[in-house]
């Protein structure tokens, strides 16, 4: 390896957040030759922002975090094309157009693909998903407005499903939302939060059907969606667009027949190394052989993709580093309600866990704390409609602070814009009432806030 004439050539397959983060960090620490290959679009764009393009908040170009000259300036070569197979013996990527590209090290960052469960009619005109840029084009074609699309049915009650509902709603298209579970996203959210979101969805005029599965999609003589039929009631719902948002799985079909070991995703060890030397996998497509802590083996979120990118770059540049993310965090937005989470708040409490739930009278804000019954150690928090400070929770989770500490310092944790109504008083009073505790609210202290170790420099 080291004998090769430098510079070493690094090829990154996939230009999403994980691939691009890896490329940027490799460039920071090395003079290697870097090529990023992707099929979807020549430039990195933010997948999470696709919805805002359809909604008219952004133009597609705004979803691209770097100007075009950035890539040239940083000597990161971009190549658009679809990789068909990987010749791992000779270290060569084969493209669908017959081209080939050699590499010394290869980072696989090929993301996910939407799930399809073999429903009848799932390939009809007007059935679409929401993952790729091309899906936006389908949306513009089949659901440009509520004249062309009289009703849309969305199948699958996860984060992408609700985003799609918000998108269609923004163009005044009536939406029926089929959710398999008894309450929205209740595999992840506890009952209170899940119910709060059910209300929000319904308040927006979305026809939310809980406990409902899709049976089949019916088409007209032109192969265009005409209606769907539900599994339970066998009810037929007329519609011209069907959005399938029933989760994603790692996109690894191009590895079929290769000697890279895969399971659901590409199997990697803690160092993000696959079974073959010089081949790494990061982001949505990677699967940890041993899950990290309480995390899932396949983590399909933005932040973890980015962290894996940061980590693998260290390894590539000679500082072999394990993927060891800090405390879990995530965020989303459900129509007008923002959601953040730090640490773990499972849908159902575990044996050693106690919970504290507070909801504001508006029914649009709530927090849910999870802590250890015995040691009172703080385990996690869900927050809806109130922004909280990542640095605060990162610290309390790492330092193993108690729930009492968190509540007493809740003013420090608040991240809402200035002049927003504060609720820490109400929250702490309710906690004291329920738990028979006598916590005293501490006033916000800039000194404490800005002396958080992992942030101050």
């Amino acid at each position, binding site marked *: 390896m080291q004998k090769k004439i430098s510079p070493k050539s690094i090829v990154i397959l996939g230009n999403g957040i994980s691939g691009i983060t890896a490329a940027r960090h490799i460039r920071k620490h090395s003079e290697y030759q870097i090529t990023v290959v992707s099929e979807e679009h020549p430039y990195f764009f933010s997948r999470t922002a696709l919805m805002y393009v359809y909604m008219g908040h952004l133009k597609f170009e705004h979803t691209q975090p770097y*100007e075009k000259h950035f890539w040239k300036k940083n000597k990161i070569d971009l190549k658009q094309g679809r990789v068909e197979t990987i010749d791992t013996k000779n270290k060569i990527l084969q493209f669908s157009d017959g081209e080939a590209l050699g590499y010394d090290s290869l980072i696989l960052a090929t993301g996910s693909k939407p799930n399809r469960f073999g429903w009848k009619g799932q390939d009809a005109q007007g059935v679409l998903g929401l993952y790729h840029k091309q899906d936006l084009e389908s949306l513009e074609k089949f659901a440009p407005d509520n004249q062309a699309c009289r009703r849309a049915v969305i199948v699958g009650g996860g984060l992408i499903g609700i985003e799609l509902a918000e998108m269609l709603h923004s163009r005044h298209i009536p939406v029926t939302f089929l959710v398999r579970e008894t309450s929205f996203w209740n595999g992840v959210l506890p009952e209170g939060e899940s119910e709060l979101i059910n209300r929000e969805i319904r308040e927006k005029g979305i026809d939310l059907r809980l406990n409902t599965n899709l049976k089949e999609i019916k088409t007209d003589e032109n192969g265009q969606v005409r209606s769907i039929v539900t599994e339970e009631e066998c009810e037929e719902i007329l519609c011209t667009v069907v959005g399938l948002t029933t989760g994603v799985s790692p996109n690894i079909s191009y590895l079929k027949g290769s000697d890279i070991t895969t399971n659901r995703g590409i199997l990697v060890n803690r160092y993000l190394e696959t079974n073959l030397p010089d081949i790494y996998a990061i982001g949505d497509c990677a699967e940890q052989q041993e899950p990290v802590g309480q995390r899932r083996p396949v983590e399909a979120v933005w932040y973890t993709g980015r962290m894996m990118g940061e*980590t693998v770059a260290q390894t590539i540049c000679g500082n072999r580093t394990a993927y060891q993310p800090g405390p879990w*965090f995530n965020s989303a937005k459900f129509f007008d309600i923002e959601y953040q989470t730090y640490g773990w708040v499972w849908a159902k409490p575990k044996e050693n866990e106690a919970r504290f739930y507070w909801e504001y009278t508006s029914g649009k804000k709530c927090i849910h704390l999870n802590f250890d019954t015995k040691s009172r150690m703080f385990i996690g928090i869900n927050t809806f409609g109130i922004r909280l400070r990542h640095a605060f929770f990162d610290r309390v989770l790492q330092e193993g602070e108690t729930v009492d500490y968190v509540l007493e310092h809740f003013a420090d944790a608040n991240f809402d814009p200035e002049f927003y109504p504060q609720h820490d008083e109400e929250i702490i009073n309710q906690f004291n009432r329920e738990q028979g505790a006598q916590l005293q609210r501490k006033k916000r202290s800039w000194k404490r806030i800005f002396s958080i170790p992992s942030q101050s420099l």
Partner: protein
Amino acid sequence: MKTLQQIGLGIFLTGLAVFVSLLFVGSYKLTPAQFEEVIQSKGIQSEVFLSEFNNQIVGKSFSNSHAFSAALISALDKANATHKKEREWSKVIWSKPNSFAYDIIKSTEAGVVAKNKALFWWLTFGLGILGALLFILPNVVLLGPPGIKNNGIWHSKATNRGWIGWMTFLFLVGFYILLYFYPNYIVNWVYLVDPISLKLSGNLASQWFLYGFLYCVVMTVMAVRMYIKYRNNKYQTLRTTSVLFFQIVFAFLIPEILVRFERPWYDFKNAFPLDYDFFFSWNLKQLIAEGGFGLFILVWGIVLTLVVVPVMVYFFGKRWYCSWVCGCGGLAETLGDPYRHLSNKSLGAWKLERWMVHGVLVFALVITGFTLYSYFSGASSVIGIKTQSLQDTYGFLIGSVFAGVIGTGFYPIFGNRVWCRFGCPLAAYLGIVQRFKSRFRITTNGGQCISCGNCSTYCEQGIDVRAYAQKGENIVRSSCVGCGICSAICPRGVLKLENGPEKGRINPTEILLGNDVDLVQLLNKK
């Protein structure tokens, strides 16, 4: 609700159409008695002008202000040409032709508008306000519950540089050109506000009174729109109330009331060097002649710029001025809000901005230096450059063309803060303080950014907010006016405007919060 909006739009457009048509109507006639008055008040000594005037103008009627001013200006030109040739300097009429024509036309009080001021006020301002409110208010229902309300902005022809945007642009630019350079064509508009001016200051309105009044009206109506659009965000509603208050009370009412009590017109919040003629000799002379009160203004003006401004920027950032007090900022944040996303975010624009805005600051300081030197030494020129012509150049290029025509006229094309970003010398000064000595920053919430780009797109100052946020870095930029919109519309709650200790305010990061603790510390502490 939708129909109500459409009716509102119809009424608004009718008001606007009447307003514009006033440029072309009226019959103007100068009676011999009025003629005498003009001669008296202007102290005209030119017999050429008098005879031209008598033959071509007096007693004749003109069907609109263009024809009338054309006749006046040609008489003036003819007279001046003759006298200049004959070197009869005392007979030359030195007034600017358009202003000269404006004064005369305005004083005739002729035409249908002048005779029905109140009626026409209702047909223009009245209909405009009513229509606009009918258009805006239904949004309480139509926009749905409080939240981020940017749906369809890039689809609408009004806000995506489509044809409605371009029409608005033409209208605004046309308006400013008339206002600054051809007041003689908008006499009818000024008549509309005569009654209000009389009530306030006891004088008839000038075109500047018209502008001030219109400014307040537009800001008020568009502030209603802000209240509805950003009703989820207390920072926005308070800030809007504040700029509205300062515009109406400080920029409009107090100065007019001062005039009523025969005091100099002064806007107490307008800080030098935005108030670029504060140190011009005519102003200094006027203030000093005024005695105690004038002196108070003089001292206040200096203290405002040298003490109040930097101290407040230290504690709160430049936002206290640009987004809470300033009139230009006030218009940008109300009338300009629908256009905020049109600002240019490229690196090139940032470079240009730094050159231009600091260039204007230097320019403003240089002319002030010249002015003060001339004032104290009595010399009319410094190192061969005439102070007066330097002042005129600044007034024309920066004060009128940049701040007005480009600054506001270009809202629908380049966004709403073109002036504040590229041209305002005060902003440059505030920005330097904010960058180097201030407690203000926009905190980035650890690793929560998803690089969606909403913040950058809606930053009116063209700051690439995302470039910082996605690296976990706080935003400390001289140009940030602290409008708080990036924070308001971030779908992941990543941004918070804060004043806190200076230590750690600027936090370059290599690895974001949330990753391996040791790695974060290792790399970020390097």
